[in-house]
């Protein structure tokens, strides 16, 4: 059988995994291969000073070959989004691998060279947008003062005072917009992300919503969850992220400070690569019993979710998806969350229960109090998209693009 060969470009990828978009790239690639009819090769980045800048190293993990381009730690502003050295390496790889299609998945730091190189080799590109790297040099539309920017649509002229250098930012903005016109299709993980991007002039009319999936719970998960609930009667709150303003930790801290009961447990996950986000002293003043939970991967995330009853997702910016929310919902875990962009598009929470961004801590405290008062921990798992579904949808998008290419030929 003639396999379709997809070259996935993603800033991180196994063996160097990091972040939600990487989880999606890895899991979709695995699901595509499992589904059959596809061969997937990956190009991603690393930063090491024991091999030369822009050297390439081939690796293979979990059956997927990943070409790592070694970039210098410090690169100029322009090299972050369009790096000729990276482009040259990508062109060499595309020439050698001859993929049928390139999936430019999460390409911050790789830059637009992937599109340039693909164009040079006549290989169609599906571009997937994550976060707002394509609109905002700060990637998350979070200003210097750590407040959500809130522009909708984004107008680069309004970025003066926030960006490092306005004319450099404008050049970047225009370049990225122009490059978006060269791809066959743009996918967004949410309607919110697509509307904001297209309203801002990015790849107008070329976008589709391609929702991210999650890994469903393992068969043993619910037994594990029940066993923990039986052995420990306390409600357990979980928080995935660092103690940053933008992730809403200060609101959580303030909300907990007003809670009288101490009969609950809290877990904060240190998602950093070096375990530096959390220190025990940060948590010692909070009521309840708090622990730092180490960073987990897809294969052991059930262990974490079996430990919690409520996921606190207090992001203070409008995110494009929110993987942890879907993972929790699929496992029958209550979610308390902000009204934060694409993170709410699962439909599991009523609009009036979504906490507005920048709201004072009262509303969060009220919802947590309610959970503590009711003592209710069981909740039916909520149906969400799985990675297998997401891969099938991607397969349909690939069909569509390749058919268009054939028609145009």
């Amino acid at each position, binding site marked *: 059988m003639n396999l379709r060969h997809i070259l996935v470009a993603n*800033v991180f990828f196994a063996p160097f995994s990091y972040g939600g978009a990487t989880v999606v790239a890895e899991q979709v690639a695995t699901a595509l291969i499992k589904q059959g009819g596809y*061969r997937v090769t990956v190009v991603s980045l690393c930063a*090491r*000073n*024991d091999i030369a800048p822009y050297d390439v*190293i081939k690796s293979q993990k979990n059956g997927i070959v990943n070409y790592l381009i070694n970039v210098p730690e410090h690169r100029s502003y322009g090299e*972050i989004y369009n790096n000729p050295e990276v482009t040259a390496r990508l062109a060499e790889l595309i020439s050698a691998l001859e993929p049928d299609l390139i999936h430019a998945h999460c390409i911050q730091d790789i830059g637009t060279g992937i599109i340039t190189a693909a164009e040079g080799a006549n290989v169609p590109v599906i571009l997937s947008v994550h976060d707002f790297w394509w609109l905002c*040099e700060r990637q998350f539309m979070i200003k210097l003062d750590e407040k959500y920017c809130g522009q909708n649509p984004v107008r680069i002229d309004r970025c003066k005072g926030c960006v490092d250098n306005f004319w450099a930012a404008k050049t970047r903005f225009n370049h990225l917009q122009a490059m978006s016109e060269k791809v066959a299709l743009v996918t967004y993980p949410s309607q919110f992300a697509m509307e904001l991007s297209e309203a801002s002039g990015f790849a107008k009319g070329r976008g589709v919503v391609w929702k991210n999936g999650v890994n469903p719970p393992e068969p043993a998960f619910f037994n594990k969850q029940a066993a923990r609930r039986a052995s420990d009667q306390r409600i357990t709150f979980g928080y995935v992220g660092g103690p940053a303003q933008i992730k809403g930790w200060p609101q959580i801290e303030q909300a907990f400070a007003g809670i009288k009961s101490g009969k609950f447990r809290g877990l904060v996950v240190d998602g950093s690569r070096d375990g530096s986000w959390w220190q025990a002293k940060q948590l010692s003043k909070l009521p309840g019993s708090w622990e730092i939970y180490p960073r987990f991967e897809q294969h052991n995330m059930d262990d974490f979710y079996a430990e919690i009853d409520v996921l606190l997702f207090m992001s203070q910016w409008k995110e494009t998806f929110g993987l942890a929310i879907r993972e929790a919902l699929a496992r029958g875990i209550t979610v308390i969350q902000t009204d934060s962009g694409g993170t709410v598009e699962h439909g599991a929470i009523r609009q009036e229960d979504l906490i507005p961004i920048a709201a004072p801590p009262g509303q969060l405290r009220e919802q947590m109090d309610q959970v503590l008062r009711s003592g209710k921990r069981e909740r039916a798992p909520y149906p969400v998209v799985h990675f297998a579904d997401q891969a099938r949808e991607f397969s349909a998008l690939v069909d569509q693009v390749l058919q268009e290419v054939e028609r145009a030929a």
Partner: protein
Amino acid sequence: MLKLPLLTLIRRFRSVLKREGTGAAVLRAAGYVRRRVRGLGTGTLSLATDTGPRGSEQYLHGIWQTLARQDAFHILQAPGVDRARRQIAMIADLNLPQCRKYRVEQLAGFWRSRGVEFEYAHYQDIPRATRIMQHATHLMEYRLQSSAVTDMFRYEARRLRLPILYDLDDPLFSVSAYETYRNMEALDPGLKSHFLSEAPKYLSMMNGADIMSVSTPGMAQHAALYTGRPVYVRRNFADAETLCAGAVAMLNNGPDDGMFRVAFASGSQGHEVDLAEILEPLSEFIQADRGRRLMLIGHFDLAHLPAKLKPQIERVEFAGYDRYLAALARANCTLMPLCDDAFNRCKSAVRVLDAASVGVPSIVADVGDLSSVVRTGETGFVAQKGGDWMDALRALAACPKDAAQMGRNARVNLEERWRASDQPHIIAPELIEWVET
């Protein structure tokens, strides 16, 4: 001048100070200012903490260790299995111009003409050598000797599951060839000792490869005495550069000055011994007519020549391929005597190809691969015994027009039979099969 939003930054500093403490706030502020001053961008990648510069022979050790820890070290399938397109990475000793031309650049042209991508790197350019292996389907090595660096390349090639071909055009691995190599007599004895001590390093490379290619049938025979690896012949040929440069040299050749020039070219040291094989008849021939000249191109120690011959000698220093061919084009014939020893039986016919490219007939010893390119009496002469040299020289001198015609025949023979092709006398079919299937 750098413009900073000071009020915002102060607020941010205070916020971090409150949340994460003085150290973190100062570090982050310093990082921000440094980035702004240097015009750096903000990327998502941070430097891997387990890395540090190492010696060149350990260039890959750090990344190997990391990949091994991450269970990402092994490439499970040879890249040629699922790829239609072939890509050769060649790591070579590119220091010798002639070797680079005939065994590397020529091969690059050959494979590219067949749609096979071919990249090469000097073995001391470790980052490039490493890089070109990563997306190759095959590794070829030329003239490398075993060392910590080449062992590292081999290790990487095996990690990447690349089949390995080792190529050689001199019996550098052979103690028996060096010990009986007559040209060594003209050189410092210390040099021979050095070559002998290096020989095992070449043999080690041969035996670590999957397959071997050599430049002549004689070399293949000799290599088979040392290695059990399959050995195939890829002869040197006249590439497009040679044919073009030869044509230009012929075109630019000045008017005939009536001299009869006999050329002897030497690309390396020690060939005085070869010329000594025929020095007596050659001297007699040159001195028999004041209009005859012995043209010595390249390395040659004149102390090895009789004093009486010196007034009729023309020296040409070797200064690049084009100038070499330009000088050769002025000759009426060229001589290639070789001592009959194990080393020379491995020799290729590149000097015959060079002479033919400028339309000059060759008189060659029946040693090595020289005679395979010469059609006796048509494109030159193969001297079987001592007297044949004088007979051939006299025949050519007797009728320079016939000699010139013989040179033209040599050029035609070169264009028809000795240019790049996949004919079995140029490249063994097994080598093509090794790459393309």
